[in-house]
Every structure is written in structure tokens, then in C-alpha cells.
């Protein structure tokens, strides 16, 4: 249970760091300087391409494309890779049974169970697809401030309600993860051994966290009201201008679309 508490605290810390990765969004890199609308539309298009292709080579190429953009955008790979790496790993774990369940031409047998070529291809494609999608969305999150993202979504005429819910969820999630971290640290600081810990303690922590969530939510809402929040997140527009990097990005995305079409032929 003590290990579980520590793991939970570390996970919440990682998630909070991931959400707070905006320090890279203010760096002077390639994708940071691209017009926000072009960036958002382009990345969503890349995700659509990744979802709709069945070609693992194309997915691999998409992944390489994302990694090269990461480097051009001055985001250290050691910061980028760990922050999204666990999601593809989780996807691979989920899809592994399909190695044994997919019918087709046998490739080899493992512990007496036949693994088919189709099964390998399915697992590979699925894993690569998830990795490429997460890599693309991480690109967006690493190079865009959330306030810019909300502004861009609004300017792209995404329904106001959706944008507001996204904004509120993001802000509360951030505060609540900090709260969870403090709570778990507080518990750890008063525990000398795992003995005496139980799921009952865990249930108490969960219940307390829910209460603190409500209290924290109320306080953050008050702080938002105190600064003029009136039910709509307003932001200053940034980087809506068009520059050479924006044109280059659009050209690259267009090339990816052409490549996608070629793989369909």
C-alpha cells in the first residue's frame, strides 16, 4: 500500500509535469512560430491520416516526421519521449492478445501457440498508429500554450461550450494533481512502514481527496471570479500572423497528405 501511494504520487507528479510543459511553448523554435490555426489544423490532419492508414511504413514515417519537428522546435528528446512514451506502451500491452487471436498465415509459434503474420502486422500497425497520434498531439501540447489553443479553437468556430469545458478541465486538473501530490506526501510523511496500511486507508484517502477536490474547486473558482472570470475564458491573441515557417509547415503537411494518397493507390 505504501508503494502504491508512492507510485500514485509519482504518477500524479508526472502528469502534472506533462500538463505544465508550457515552458517549451515559449521557446523560439520552428513549430512555436507557426501560425496557430495552421498548426492546429495541420496536426489534426496528421492525426486523421494516422488513423485512416493501414500502412505501417507510412505510420513509421509520420512518427519520424514528428520527431524531426520536435528537434527543430528545440524540445529536448529526453523531455519529450518520457512524457508520451507510457501511452503507446499501454496500447501495445492492450493489443498483444491479437498476436495470438488473429487468424492467418503462421509466422512462428511461441510456447505452442501459433503467431500469424497478420497478427504481427495488426499489433505493429495498431501500436505505431497510437504512437504516431500521441506523438503528433504531444507536438501540439509542447509547442502551444493552452490559452493559445483555446483561443485558436474559438477562432476556428469550435462550439464555445466545448472550449470552455476544455479550459476548465485543464485548469482544475492541474490544481487537483498538485492537491493529490500534497495529500499523498502528507500521508507518506507519517508512515514508517507498510504495516498497518490497507485498502481501508486507501478508501479514506480517496474520500478525503474527493472532499478536498470540491473545496479546491470552490477556491479556484473564487480566485477566477476575483480576476474577472465571467463564464468565458478570454485570452490575448498570439502569433496569428503568417510567416515562412507557417508556409513550410503547411507544405510539409500537404506532402504528407500526398504520400498518404500514394499509399492508397
Amino acid at each position, binding site marked *: 500500500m505504501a508503494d502504491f501511494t508512492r507510485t500514485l504520487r509519482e504518477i500524479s507528479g508526472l502528469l502534472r509535469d506533462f500538463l505544465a510543459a508550457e515552458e517549451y511553448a515559449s521557446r523560439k523554435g520552428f513549430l512555436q512560430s507557426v501560425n496557430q490555426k495552421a498548426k492546429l489544423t495541420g496536426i489534426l490532419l496528421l492525426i486523421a491520416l494516422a488513423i485512416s492508414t493501414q500502412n505501417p511504413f507510412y505510420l513509421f514515417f509520420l512518427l519520424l516526421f514528428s520527431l524531426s519537428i520536435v528537434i527543430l522546435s528545440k524540445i529536448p528528446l529526453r523531455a519529450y519521449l518520457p512524457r508520451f512514451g507510457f501511452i503507446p506502451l499501454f496500447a501495445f500491452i492492450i493489443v498483444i492478445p491479437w498476436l495470438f487471436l488473429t487468424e492467418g498465415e503462421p509466422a512462428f509459434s511461441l510456447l505452442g501457440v501459433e503467431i500469424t503474420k497478420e497478427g504481427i502486422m495488426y499489433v505493429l500497425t495498431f501500436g505505431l498508429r497510437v504512437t504516431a497520434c500521441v506523438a503528433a498531439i504531444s507536438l501540439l501540447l509542447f509547442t502551444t500554450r493552452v490559452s493559445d489553443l483555446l483561443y485558436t479553437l474559438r477562432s476556428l468556430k469550435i462550439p464555445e461550450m466545448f472550449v470552455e469545458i476544455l479550459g476548465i478541465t485543464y485548469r482544475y486538473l*492541474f*490544481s487537483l494533481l498538485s492537491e493529490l501530490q500534497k495529500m499523498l506526501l502528507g500521508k507518506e510523511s507519517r508512515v514508517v512502514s507498510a504495516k498497518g496500511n490497507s485498502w481501508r486507508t486507501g478508501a479514506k484517502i480517496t474520500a478525503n481527496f474527493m472532499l478536498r477536490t470540491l473545496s479546491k474547486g470552490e*477556491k*479556484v473558482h*473564487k480566485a477566477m*471570479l476575483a*480576476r*474577472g472570470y465571467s463564464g468565458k475564458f*478570454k485570452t490575448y491573441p498570439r502569433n496569428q500572423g503568417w510567416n515562412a515557417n507557417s508556409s513550410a509547415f503547411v507544405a510539409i503537411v500537404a506532402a504528407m497528405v500526398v504520400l498518404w494518397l500514394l499509399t492508397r493507390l
Partner: protein
Amino acid sequence: MASDKIIEARNLKYRYPDGTIGIENVDFELWRGERVVIIGPNGSGKSTLLLILGGLISPTEGSIKFFGKEKIEPYELRRKVGILLQNPDDVLFNPTVREDLEFGPAQIEMPEEEFKQILHAVTQMLHIEHLLDKPPFRLSEGQKQKAAFGCVLTMKPEVLLLDEPFSAVDIETKLSMIRHLNELNRQGVTIVVTAHDISVVPLIADRVYLLNKHVVAVGKTREILTNVELLRKNGLDAPPFVEFALKLGLNPLPLTVDEAVRSVRKLIKSGGKEKEEANESD
């Protein structure tokens, strides 16, 4: 001091949902250009009163007028009255300090150019330029308090309501915040601060409200802070220099270091005669 009344509250009462009384029978007045400190022990209702004065919660009973108006548009109130909540962790809810500083001005639709100028001035004043792109949870408590203070200042309010702003900061940060507040007051900003640390009050107050669920006393800073019996009765200590001067038998009682030094010098020069005269006249 200009003569217009900014806040006029009458017979305020606040009852929490569980039935606990936060404050009751509270009358409060705030005049333009004033520096008011609300003192009181823990649980005396200081924060509750400040939230009501900031228009963030409505009193259960009583009435409150802002700028002479019975009803004020939230937009107008927010533009004019800035409130700093007690815990900076509640104030800093954005991923970076820069976005937190920007949040308020963007909500009240301050022109971007004006905001940029204010941001520059505020970050320089508070020495937090290097923290702008940092996530708030990576800051020290003092840095968080400064950043939270900056969040209110960037909104350029006419009235500043600050809930225990010095409670979690070191002495250097505390003194620098007091300096900035007094400078803002000289520029015309009206200031209300809640505090339970009496030692800072003489540095920042023209008038003091002593609160203990209801207003126990209200008056000039010297008047309230030298009433040792009243303070003790309400769970507060008198400022250290008042205690010191009482033991030495100084008259008048000093509230600050400078006043204490002057009084002691005077006492030394007079060779203690002044003390005897003061005692006789008492």
C-alpha cells in the same frame, strides 16, 4: 485623502452552510486613499469579511454599497477592486506564472499594449521576471506569494483587498511587499489588508478594525494598537515596541523602530525626568 466612500457595509452577517457564524453585526466603511488593516485572532472572520468586501460571497444578512451604488456590475467591480486570496496555490491555477499574470487583465479586456506595459512594471517591481515561464508549483512559498500579488497588481485596481499577504513570506519579502503597497497607496490605490501579525500593522495602516466575529473596535492605528488590554482580550499581542515602551514607562507609546529610537533617545537626554513627569501626569 479624497472624501468619497468606496465601500459602505451595514450590519453584515455571514453564516456558513453548516450553521457556523462567520461574522455578524459588522459595519465597515472604506474611504478613497485609505490604508485599512483588519486584525483579529484566527477564526475571527477576517477572510470572510474580505471575501464579502471583494464581492466574492454575498452576506447572509446586511447590505453593502460599492462606490455609492446598491448594485454594481461584476465587470465594474472586478476592474476597480482587486482581491488577493490567502493561499497563493488557489490564485496560481495556470500552467505558468506568465499566464497567471495575464489571466485577470485578459478577463477584464484590458488592451494588450497596456497589459504589456503593466506586466513589465509589475514583474520588475516584484523581481519576478525570471519566474515568468515557470510552473507555479516549482516556486518557493515567497515566490508564489509575490506571483499571486502580481496577479492582482496587473489588473491595475483602484482598491486592493489582501488576505493575510505576509503570512507565509520571509522578512525581506514582507518588507518589500509593504514598501510596494505604500508606494501604490501614494499613487492613489486604496488598501485593505487582513493580518494577525500585529508587528506589520503600524507600517501599513491608517486605520484599524479589530474583528472578533463582530467589530470589537475601530479607530486610528495608534489608538487601537496601544490598547494592550483590548488586544489581549481578543487573543492578540500588542506590537513589541508597545510592550517595550510600557515596561520603560515611555509616553507616547512608540509603534515602530524609528518611533522607539526617538523615544529612547529623548528619555536618555532628559535623564529619565520625562518618564517621571509622564508618570506623575498619569
